[in-house]
């Protein structure tokens, strides 16, 4: 970058103050010359980044290095260009784009197979993806009910965009909406509400919850004696959980007049997103709690956290999913059935929470001891210290690690296809086995499409994390 010559200099002629007239002092800036041709434009860039390292023949050593560099430059360049060209040729130039006659697989037939395309043709068969688009996006979800999925998706997208775009107002409230109302709304839209809940049980749970909250309040004020005061916060939290549970189940139990669509009719990208987003959203708070628990000085909390984390990190996700889908039904009495998707969701959640906990623990350990001591010196309570001082800094430190875990989790969702859930990859594989579209390029086209979808999501997450990092670490930029 060419430096602006005027930027740092004090202004020459100050009005109202006479300048001594010295012949050797410049009164105006030197003219800005264009950069020499070897520094500017494409040739300059090429010189600096490519040619400079392979044109030094001043000694034997540097000559050898130059030749090796030249060889690798050409080789890597050729590899990149030919791969990119091959992909471009397959996906765009040679591809079949439309099937106007509705002849399905025959639209992508070569002469050898009885079609129109030249022998040896190799290109993407996009009409196949277009025909399977609904299946790969929604799975076997009822076609006339797709608006429900779309509506949930659109609300989610708008909410997410709102939270991410900085100048918009009420971002905090939109965030709260996304984390509380939105999941319920999504469940109702996707599943149809009308869960079979017993009002009797719910009201009992609700009453127990209320009783616990009251107990927490009273004990917290020390009205029930010192022994009980120790259980005040536990009682309060438990009470709120029960009340929340009762309210949520009541909302889900209402019949909204939507047709029930079982989770085994969900599929494609829908399942991928449901599993990934649930895992991502649940793993962060769970991970924070576990990380704090592991660094806690309370032995029981610490031991429980360590056992949890080490157990879930010690088993592969595929084992967890298998256990949940193959073993669990054998332990339950016949006829009692957990939903297959719910099983996978719980498995993925707990699994990713353990990984997240370790990432966050890394952030906590990177924090200077002085920060903890400073917070203590201010007289903050443990939770205030964590919420106001420690976690904001610790989490900022480990954004790359957190997003890494998110991206890993997003891609790991493909494992649910082995327990019979049709995620995006599973749906694509099922589509690929459809003989109505059977051609030699069917599998290639399907997998290319899936890869592209995954890339868009993962790359998007990656870019957003870089943006967040830059935003949050502005104060500590060197």
């Amino acid at each position, binding site marked *: 970058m060419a430096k602006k010559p005027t930027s740092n200099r004090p202004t020459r002629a100050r009005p109202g103050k006479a300048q001594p007239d010295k012949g050797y002092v410049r009164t105006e800036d030197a003219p800005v010359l264009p950069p020499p041709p070897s520094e500017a434009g494409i040739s300059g860039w090429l010189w600096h980044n490519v040619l400079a390292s392979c044109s030094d023949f001043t000694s034997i050593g540097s000559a050898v290095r130059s030749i090796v560099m030249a060889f690798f430059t050409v080789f890597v360049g050729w590899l990149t260009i030919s791969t990119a060209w091959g992909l471009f040729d397959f996906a765009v130039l040679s591809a079949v784009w439309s099937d106007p006659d509705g002849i399905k*697989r025959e639209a992508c037939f*070569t002469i*050898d*197979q009885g079609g129109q395309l030249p022998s040896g043709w190799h290109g993407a068969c996009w009409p196949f993806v277009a025909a*399977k688009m609904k*299946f790969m996006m*929604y*799975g*076997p*979800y009822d*076609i006339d009910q797709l608006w429900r999925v779309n509506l949930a998706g659109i609300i989610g997208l708008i909410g997410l965009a709102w939270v991410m775009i900085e100048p918009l107002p009420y971002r905090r409230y939109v965030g709260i909406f996304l984390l509380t109302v939105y999941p319920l709304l999504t469940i109702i839209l996707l599943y149809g509400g009308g*869960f*079979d*809940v017993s009002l009797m*049980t719910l009201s*009992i*749970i609700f009453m*127990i919850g209320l*009783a*616990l909250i009251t*107990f927490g309040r009273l004990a917290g004020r020390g009205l029930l004696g010192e022994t009980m005061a120790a*259980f005040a916060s536990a*009682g309060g939290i*438990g*009470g709120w959980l*029960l009340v929340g*549970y*009762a309210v949520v*189940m009541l909302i889900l139990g209402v019949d909204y007049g939507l047709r029930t669509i079982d989770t*085994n009719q969900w*599929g494609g990208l829908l399942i991928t997103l449901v599993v990934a987003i649930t895992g991502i959203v649940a793993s962060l708070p769970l991970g924070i709690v576990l990380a704090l628990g592991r660094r806690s000085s309370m032995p029981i909390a610490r031991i429980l956290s360590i056992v949890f984390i080490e157990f879930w990190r010690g088993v592969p996700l595929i084992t967890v999913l*298998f256990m949940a*889908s*193959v*073993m669990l*039904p*054998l332990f*339950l009495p*016949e*006829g*009692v*059935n*957990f*939903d*297959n998707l719910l099983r996978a969701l719980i498995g993925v959640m707990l699994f990713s929470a353990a990984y997240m906990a370790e990432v966050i623990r890394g952030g906590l350990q990177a924090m200077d001891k002085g920060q903890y001591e400073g917070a203590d010196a201010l007289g903050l309570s443990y939770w205030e210290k964590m919420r106001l001082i420690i976690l904001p800094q610790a989490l900022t430190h480990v954004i790359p690690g957190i997003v890494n875990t998110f991206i890993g989790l997003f891609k790991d969702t493909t494992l649910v296809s*082995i*327990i*019979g859930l*049709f995620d995006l990859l599973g749906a694509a594989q*099922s589509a*690929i*086995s*459809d*003989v*109505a579209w*059977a*051609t*030699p390029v*069917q*599998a290639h086209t399907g997998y290319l499409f899936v890869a592209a979808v995954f890339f868009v999501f993962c790359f998007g997450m990656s870019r957003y994390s870089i943006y967040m990092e830059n935003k949050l670490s502005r104060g500590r930029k060197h």
Partner: protein
Amino acid sequence: MIKITSAIAGVATAILATSAFAGAHGDTTLGQVQAKGFVQCGVSQGLPGFSNADDAGNWAGIDVDLCRAVAAAVFGDASKVKFTPLSAKQRFTALSSGEIDILSRNTTWTMTRDTQLGLNFAGVNYYDGQGMMVPAGLGAKSALELDGANICTNTGTTTELNITDYFRANNMSFNLVAYEKADEVVAAYDAGRCDVYTTDRSGLAAQRTKLTSPDAHVVLPEIISKEPLGPVVRQGDDNWFNIVRWSLNAMINAEELGITAANAASMANDNNPSVKRLLGTEGNFGEELGLSNDWAMNIVTQVGNYGESYERHVGLNTPIKLARGVNNLWSQGGILYAAPIR
């Protein structure tokens, strides 16, 4: 402390209350199926011609048709069936845990499975067998000419075992090239990485459609294993077992008697007493099963007879192009032989 224990008890009750929402409504499978209003059927995750999702995501195939036939028999409505795609490892657990009512997932009937898993095979809806495909240019007319061949197949299936047994029994050497997925096997075979592609003959026919020049390959006449595929139900509920078995028999008998989806209604008053008994105009065979007497009538009008189902999904007019072969009626040179309805 008491409060905390009661909180835990509350949570436990809550969990039980929600987890039991798919609880049992009757003692028998038929009772449960009627109570929930649909048949839950376990199918494959995508096997062309047997159970596969079409462009709209609807399941189609001969295994799927069998479940639709059971739904037609039970409810008079072939659409009252829901499908659970299952992997090979999951399928038996899903059935024995009650997650599904019928397993119709190209499952080979073997003695081990029949006797050790607490399951019963209700019949055979497709007689498959492992075969071999070779490029026509190889000039092989019999599998016995394949000494020293490179053989492509899937890992972890019995096909590997069968081909090893066959070659050892015939004192031939071979080199096994095994891949995880069917797509990889086809791609490797198509690229000429091996001389022989072996899997079940129905699979060979389906995968052949993905070759660059399908006509340049031949399927050898040898069949090296018996793979009778059929629907499976839980052991211990004979009524449900009978319903599934006779739904299949009704489809085969309908073909034998010349009853099709189109002519079933007019055939109901045919002079042939076998036709009358099948279609419910004579006797009360449906009621003996716990169903209505027009059970088989519903099957044939809504799903079709066995031959119609076969031709629709795997027959010569489909890309799979499987000739009937042994899966023809016993009277047409095949081995399909359903017990009579009388």
